[in-house]
């Protein structure tokens, strides 16, 4: 087992006029080679900012701190701007959510793909073009040679996302971060793209961080899972562990929200978690989830809640002991 990416206590702070916003707080996780890690959470939980923080693509006002951020042993926290730009697109790649606007409308597909390789490798334009064609075919685009001369607006959303994936693979990165790559696509295309990502991972052996709000995607793709809520990881572990034995009330709430054909009865209320995400400006007291947690009590505040590690890479953020939280889960299920 070889660790590809190690993250310890990653923070993102953004100064606002009303105080300092902490959208990402003390994240600790890792990704192994060839492994898919899914970061899942609702809108606004900080997962997108996490991916930007990993790539050092945060907006200017935001600042990033942490104890450790290493990609294959390279320290990304102390890397200079020049070193980071050498790593981006080369050792680390990123796929974004909106394929419609993520490609420059003024240049051809071929130009943008070749550019990705020419920046990091000492190859000729011809060699870069051949690699582009090879990868376009790998992502399932027919007539690849002809596609090179096309402009982004001439392709559909699904095709554009495939082009994005191919473009990210131009330099054979060790790690790919995909931020909600299928959210903006049709449901049928979603499945295709996810399958494609899985196959490519199998073939090229890169690590994949998949950011999503959709538990169905997690179920299909994840080897390991991080559940994020209000800027913190509230639970992490392998997919079997998190789905089979959810320790945190939020995770259980999320799983509950998915209607299961056959199991959910007609007319039954769809599960939902009442309340709203708390404000993350300034110092927040205690557990971020306690305003919405059915088991909140006085131990939940005001001290910050630490991640409770109960196994290798397995942890949850709650003051309840494993037995207490499992019992609470059974109570919830009985309702």
């Amino acid at each position, binding site marked *: 087992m070889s660790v590809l990416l190690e993250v310890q206590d990653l923070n993102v702070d953004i100064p606002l006029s009303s105080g300092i916003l902490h959208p990402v707080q003390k994240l600790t996780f890792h990704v192994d080679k060839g492994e898919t890690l899914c970061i899942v959470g609702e809108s606004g939980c900080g997962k997108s900012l996490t991916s930007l923080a990993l790539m050092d693509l945060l907006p200017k006002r935001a600042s990033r701190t942490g104890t450790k951020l290493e990609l294959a042993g390279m320290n990304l926290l102390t890397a200079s701007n020049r070193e980071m730009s050498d790593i*981006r697109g080369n050792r680390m*790649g*990123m796929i*974004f959510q909106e394929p419609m*606007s*993520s490609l*420059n409308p*003024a240049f051809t597909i071929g130009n943008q793909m070749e550019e990705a390789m020419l*920046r990091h490798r000492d190859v000729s334009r011809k060699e870069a073009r051949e690699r582009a064609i090879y990868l376009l075919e790998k992502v399932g685009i027919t007539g690849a040679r002809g596609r090179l001369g096309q402009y982004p607006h001439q392709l559909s959303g699904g095709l554009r996302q495939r082009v*994005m994936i191919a473009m990210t693979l131009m330099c054979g990165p060790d790690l790919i971060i995909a931020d909600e790559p299928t959210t903006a696509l049709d449901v049928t295309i979603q499945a295709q793209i996810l399958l494609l990502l899985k196959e490519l991972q199998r073939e090229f052996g890169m690590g994949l961080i998949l950011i999503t709000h959709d538990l169905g995607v997690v179920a299909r793709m994840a080897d390991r899972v991080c559940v994020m809520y209000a800027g913190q990881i509230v639970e992490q572990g392998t997919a079997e562990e998190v789905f089979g034995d959810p320790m945190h009330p939020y995770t259980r709430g999320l799983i509950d929200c998915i209607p299961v054909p056959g199991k959910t009865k007609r007319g039954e209320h769809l599960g939902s978690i009442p309340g709203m995400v708390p404000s993350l400006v300034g110092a927040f007291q205690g557990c971020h989830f306690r305003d919405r947690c059915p088991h909140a009590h006085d131990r939940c505040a005001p001290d910050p809640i630490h991640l409770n590690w109960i196994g290798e890479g397995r942890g949850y953020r709650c003051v309840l002991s494993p037995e207490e939280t499992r019992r609470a889960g059974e109570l919830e299920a009985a309702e």
Partner: protein
Amino acid sequence: MLVFMARRLFVAVLVAFTVSVIAFSLMRISGDLAVMLAGEDATAEQVEIIRERFGLNRPYYIQYLEWMGKAVQFDFGESMFYPQSVSSLIVDRITNTLTLAGFGLAFALSLSIPMGVLAALRPDSWIDRLALTIAVLGQALPGFWFALILMFIFGLYLGMFPISGSDTYWHFVLPAISLGYYSTPAVMRLTRTGMLEVMSSDYIRTARAKGLHTGTILFKHALRNAVIPVVALSAVQFGNMLGGSIVTETVFQIQGLGKLAYDGVLKNDFPVVQAVLLLVAVFYIVLVLLGDLLNAWLDPRIRVG
């Protein structure tokens, strides 16, 4: 897209004809052109002679049609004041005005595009405020006053540039600055807004994620998109400079179309004035169309459909 351009062309031709009517009528508004030409002390006979000589006794529309008929062949008749045909007068002077406007545009662009880009990259910084100040001052500065100040400081006092005439390219430096400065605010604002919008776009984020150099991101990816509307605006500004060069040419004694029109108006040289007005307007129409064409050409979404 062809249908769109055809429609624009049709409107353009219509506008051109309307302008030709205006150009033709302008000098005749206060009444009898023959009386104006003859002067205050002329007798009725002298006025009649003039009327005959220039065909001013014929119906209005006939005079117009005759003029237009020749105008489209670039024959604008004879000047009342110079011993030359109007066309040759125009040909003599048009290069000066085109040079002046060209230099003026070059100055405006070389000042406003870099400033607009820098202001967009560092919003609310001192450079942004400097750009804003230049823009605000530029719009309040009377053109003739600015021209005189430039002439005074750089021409007379420091002796760096010649202050009148149009013999060498040096002669065009001060006039170009004076003329071009007025266009700077608009171009700078458009560049700044365009760059701000583009720099926050998704494809720039992708370019960064690919690890491209900052220079590549700025000049290849960002500017290429931000500059499209600026090109169209530049064409319009060039057209404005062609028509607005009167003051600059008069101050710096440049024998261009503006000065020709000015002298012509003062001397009641109506063939000259009509011709210059029409020409400048037609130039403007062509430039606007050109601007739109360039706009469409530069954006692959329109060009390749």
